[in-house]
């Protein structure tokens, strides 16, 4: 008995590829000389990184006073960016873990870069909680380490402590997952490279991978286990991040809807970022055969779904604020939409709720330019969502006497630019030294895909082109 093969499922790898083609195509940027564009990109992003480091230096030397936050608004861009980056870091794990468990084969083309993106994004995110504290030298107090100060322990009631735990776990698991996946590919590079130094380095990095049956078996097992571990993390990390707000007493923060709403938002923004990056990468690195329009469409469907969840959550919040009869809650939401920061609310609404709705139409889903624009809008919208949550809730809470306004200082903006620099610096290094697409996993599905291709050709099914 043959398994049921959907006649309409498009082929995931375009063009008739042999195993050798796959290796050659994907290793091309690693083995060859990088183009001037790569150098330009790396220079620009590392300059941004350096600028960010300067701003970080100022923050550490002079104090948090360098930022625009104040007595009333204790968190600003740092926490907004933290949540934003963490959100972006969600797609990788979702693609690798959940889609692996659901046996979604299309993930093979995008999972590697999505995972890398996750790790870099979590690194950027993790920087902010460390930086935003007042006393950087004693930030280790937040870890539950054994100490000589008597029974001095962290506060297990604090969502910030849960946060530290959740993010550290998430980062470690994501890193492991990503690296384990890389091992066979690193071995391929080791075998292909002509430079003896590179061979040595890749040899070390690939842990002496030989591709024996036993190794493949163990590799499969650990991948599956890590996928199992990572799956709950996808849900837990952003739920816990949302607790940073939800467990407080501040109107606009104190909401039980936050965990699902945050997770959906995170996946939403993560896919937005994956799309932005992949649309550039497939063009720049000529990987159109591996990252096809169908891949883009799948991801757009996820954008549509999560965007709609987020939109529903926004409306639910408004309804509950009205329904609660709580004057503080009602004012908080009125203030979001019509207060001094009204513009941030409407940017959020437009970018997150209105634009992704165009993806109900197939034509928009398959339009690369439109996808590119929306993917960027999604990330702008999600940034503003965090701005709305963090700033507009805080700036006018209970006592009108304490109300105030918040304007980011150049230092805060610079640190944000710096993390974007860090992200892209790492990403540029990644595409230069590691395979962007998981070679071994593509090869894994190549046989079935080629067979599918042949069958489609013989039955003269017309492929829809973009």
């Amino acid at each position, binding site marked *: 008995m043959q398994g049921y093969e959907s006649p309409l499922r498009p082929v995931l790898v375009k063009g008739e590829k042999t195993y050798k083609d796959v290796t050659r195509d994907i290793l091309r940027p690693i083995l060859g000389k990088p183009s001037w564009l790569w150098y330009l990109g790396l220079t620009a992003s590392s300059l941004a990184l350096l600028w960010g480091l300067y701003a970080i230096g100022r923050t550490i*030397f*002079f*104090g*948090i*006073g360098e930022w*625009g*936050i*104040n*007595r*009333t*608004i*204790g*968190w600003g861009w740092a926490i907004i960016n933290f949540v934003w980056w963490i959100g972006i870091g969600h797609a990788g794990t979702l693609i690798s873990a959940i889609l692996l468990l659901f046996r979604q084969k299309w993930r093979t083309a995008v999972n590697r870069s999505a995972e890398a993106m996750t790790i870099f994004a979590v690194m950027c995110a993790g920087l902010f*909680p460390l930086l*935003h*504290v*007042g*006393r*950087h030298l*004693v*930030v280790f*107090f*937040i870890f539950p380490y054994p100490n000589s100060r008597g029974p*001095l*322990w*962290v*506060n297990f*009631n*604090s*969502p*910030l*402590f849960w946060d*530290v735990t959740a993010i550290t776990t998430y980062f470690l698991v994501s890193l492991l997952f990503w690296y384990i996946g890389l091992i066979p590919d690193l071995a391929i590079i080791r075998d292909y490279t002509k430079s003896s130094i590179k061979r040595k380095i890749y040899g070390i990095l690939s842990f002496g991978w030989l591709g024996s049956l036993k190794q493949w078996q163990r590799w499969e097992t650990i991948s599956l286990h890590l996928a199992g571990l990572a799956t709950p993390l996808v849900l837990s990390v952003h739920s816990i991040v949302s607790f*940073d707000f939800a*467990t*407080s*007493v*501040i109107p606009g923060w104190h909401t039980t809807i936050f965990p699902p709403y945050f997770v959906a938002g995170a996946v939403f923004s993560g896919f937005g970022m994956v799309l932005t990056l992949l649309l550039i990468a497939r063009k720049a690195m000529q990987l159109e055969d591996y990252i096809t329009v169908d891949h883009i469409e799948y991801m757009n469907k996820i954008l549509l779904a999560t965007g709609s969840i987020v939109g529903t959550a926004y409306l639910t919040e408004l309804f509950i604020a009205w329904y609660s009869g709580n*004057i*503080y809650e009602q*004012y908080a939401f009125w203030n979001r939409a019509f207060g001094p920061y009204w513009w941030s609310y409407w940017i959020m609404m437009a970018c997150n709720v209105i634009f992704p709705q165009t993806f109900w139409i197939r034509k928009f889903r398959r339009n690369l330019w439109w996808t590119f624009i929306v993917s960027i809008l999604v990330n702008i919208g999600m940034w503003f969502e965090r701005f709305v949550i963090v700033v507009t809730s*805080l700036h*006018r*809470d*209970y*006592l*009108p*006497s*304490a*109300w*105030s*306004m918040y304007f980011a200082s150049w230092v805060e903006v610079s640190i944000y630019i710096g993390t974007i620099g860090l992200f892209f610096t790492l990403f540029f290094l990644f595409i230069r030294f590691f395979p962007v697409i998981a070679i071994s996993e593509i090869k894994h599905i190549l046989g079935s895909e080629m067979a599918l291709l042949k069958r489609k050709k013989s039955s003269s099914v017309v492929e829809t082109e973009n």
Partner: protein
Amino acid sequence: MEKKKYWKSLSGNNERSQNGKSRHPEFGEWVENTIFKKQLTRRDFLKWTGLTTAATTLASCWEVPVRKAIPYFIQPEESIPGVSVHYATAYFDGEEFASLLVKTREGRPIKVEPHPKAPFNATSAKIQGSLFNLYDHRRLDSPLHKGEKVSWDKALKETKALLDSVREGSKVRLVTPTIISPATKKLIDEFLSSFTDAKHVQYDVVSFSALLDAHEKAFGKRAVPDYRIDKAKVVLGVEADFLGGWLSAGEMARRYGVARRVTKDSPEMLLHLQAEARYSLTGSNADYRYKLQAGEHLPFIIGLYNAIAKKTDSGLPTFSVSLSQDLEKYVAEVSEKLLSAPGYALVLYGPNDLKGQMFALAINYLLGAYDSRLADIEKPLYIRQGSDQQFFELIDEMNKGEVDVLILYDVNPAYDYAYPVVFSEALKKVKHVITLAEKNHETGQLSEWVLPSTVPYESWRDYLPKEGVYFIAQPVFTGLYNAKQFEDVLLAWLDKNQNFYSYLKTFWAQNIYPLYGTEKEAESLWQQTIHDGYYFLKNDGVQTTENGQESSVDWAQFVTEASQIEDVEISKPSVYLYEPIIGTGRYSNNAWLQETPDPLTKVVWDNYVAVSPSYAKEQGYKTGDLVKVSLMKGSGTYSVELPIVVQPGISHGVYAIAVGYGRTADGKVAQTGKNAFPFASLVKQGGNYYVSWVSGGIKVEKLNQTYQIVSTQEHFNIEGRPIVRETSLEEWKQNPWSGNEERADTEKIKKLRKTTFYPEREFVQHWDMVIDLSLCIGCGACVVACDNENNVPVVGKEEVGRVHEMHWIRIDLYYSGDPENPDAVYQPMLCQHCDHAPCENVCPVAATNSSVDGINQMAYNRCIGTRYCANNCPYKVRRFNWYDYTGADSFPMNEKIVEDGPFANDKNRLILNPDVVVRSRGVMEKCTFCIQRIQEAKLKAKAEGRKIRDGEIKTACQAACPTGAIKFGDGADKSAEVAQLIEGDERVYYVLEELHTLPSVAYMTKIRNRSKQNA
């Protein structure tokens, strides 16, 4: 045979194995093996030596600041390190008198508190901040001759020679502020009598000349009656900011508090009426505020006189005066209210205008205030004695070049006179000017000689602020600056080989104690007086007129004379000057006061032009717009550029400007703002000149520039939230829950308060505070006291502008009603010390937690500064050290310390309280309920083997509060005052109680003395 094994403890016995060696090497295996087992080779030894040498060298490369701490050779008798000593003393700054208790630690004064027993024991914000002036490093440290430093020996010798040369026939003039010290007065007389033509002129910055002259005309006594508003039932203030800077802010506020306190046992309160054009602190507290137009105070007071003279059937003549419709209405209403309490009604008339003062005096007579001693002229106040006319005459003499030697003590007319330029020009025509001052101020810089004088805290002095009550001020500190007391300089000039202390003692023995008529020995009396700080005189010591004070006055003639005095025309637009929290110049360099928000606008670090919302709209002004205000004065025009602040309640066309800013010859802090004194004008009435703080006919020009005005509160609308609760006296009498109806169902509230998932907390001791909103007048004394007590950083204008102010207690102000004449309500807001504190559960490192006695405490050392606690505080009372505001970090390059502020340098830092840690950058801080005071009291009680008594602990804000709005104590002790209030008073409520934070700070519904809330 096996060796006998000795062991110290059971665990030690078990831990060690048979051969006596530890199973767990103390320093780890590696160290044990390599170093202790002597496996260290020569090479290893050299390596280790090298490493440790290099490490120590590197570590010692950093330059460590050397701070000198010199131990006592012989420990002073009273000074025990770590134990505070309190001294009774008294303070008079030329305006305000207060009897104080000064807390000293290791010999240095760190805090002033009201004297617990003496009269006049109330402190205003200024008095609370006055201790800073003692340490201010801008003080003069050496006599100056033409700007050059000279030694005291030389200075005294040469000035003495100078004075000796003018003993005969030359004019010598001495200018001082009001002197209320009997001994000093006698000494001045002795000094002046050593010249053939010498005169003493008293010069008051806040002049009461007209009021004094009016009383002289009526009673032959040039003194301020002691206004007993504590005994009054109705008080009317006419442009008299008596809770602010008008007479004696602290003492008047204390009396106001006495009269305004409402309890269930005595449910009556003072009815406060205020008629004014400027919206003053006092006006904002009034039950009924009558908005006068610019310059209408004079017609109003005459109209009021007419009405009262008619209604009382006094037979006194009335005088025609044209009143606007509003004024007619006001007069009718006010006169009715005043006459409703005969003998218990009082009118305080503020402007320095003779005609108005005389009519106000006549009104008080008609109301029976002098008879009932509500305005006590028999035992009057002496805290204002200056005469504008005398000072005017002095300038005339100076201008004519007749004055040979002018001695100026503690006055600064080159800054604070209405015509500073005229004065400065006249000063140039004086042959020799000797200035005695704490600082080389504006006048000092124009003087030939400047001799540094001591501040009151360094001086021996006696005070007679009110007839019959004598105070002794003992110095609580000395020697930081090379200054001499004014009286000691006089004694040196008189060639008396005596210091003022012995002079004072002799003076008291000869003049004061005999009045007492006791057999007690002078020495023991003296010791007792110094210990107590004050001395009451029995009535028999005072010569008073018998049978009423006004019997001898011909009132018809008095009012007729008043009516003949020329009117003062104030044309629109007009400028109204007022004294702000920083005072009139003496305290301008005091960063605590500069950073204490103005009660009504919450603006800090600046003076500005306050205008009404409707006028601003009409003129196109917005807060922050720069305007050029000019006033034609005699020969020249004085103009300054000041920013506009739109303030509700001011009258149309009135520009209100605070004095005391814009010092040019003082520290950096004092230089903020612009000098507004020149906007005062001289007005001639009844042949004498008076300095008027109201001037008409100013020109205002809007400049196309803006200026950053910084305030600590931006939103004054309460948005319908039940944060402050208020009611009227009538409604409250009918229903004690009125205004606080939410809590009327006590059973439900009790149940709700106990609803929790967690086990209920039991408290053996629970510190609670109750703040009566009826009594809080918003003066800001608590803010300054807290700054001083708790080493609260001063952050400066720029940082306040970035909403980084650090105050642990703030006074929230909410306006309600018509923006042109609003009601104001003040709410002191500090850490509420919640039993279920939202800040506590969110701190990841448990740096903030709840103590067993209900205090929400901060462990600064543990705090890493996530600021989540501040975000999650519904009261927004937590303060974060955004920068190094205190110099607590080791790098000098990253400090953000206000220049000339309390943290600025070693001398200024002497003011810091050693019991309170100075917080470093990056940690959160907030009100601690003055935990150091609680601890001190606990230790004392423990040492004495008793429980802490109710009322024994006073927080700094509570002690400073002149009206007694704040109560503090152990809520778990059912007999304590706070416990009884919380348990039994219907007015008690908690802010945001519905959040179930269970705060320890309770508020009491504000009661206005009205029939209905919005009447």
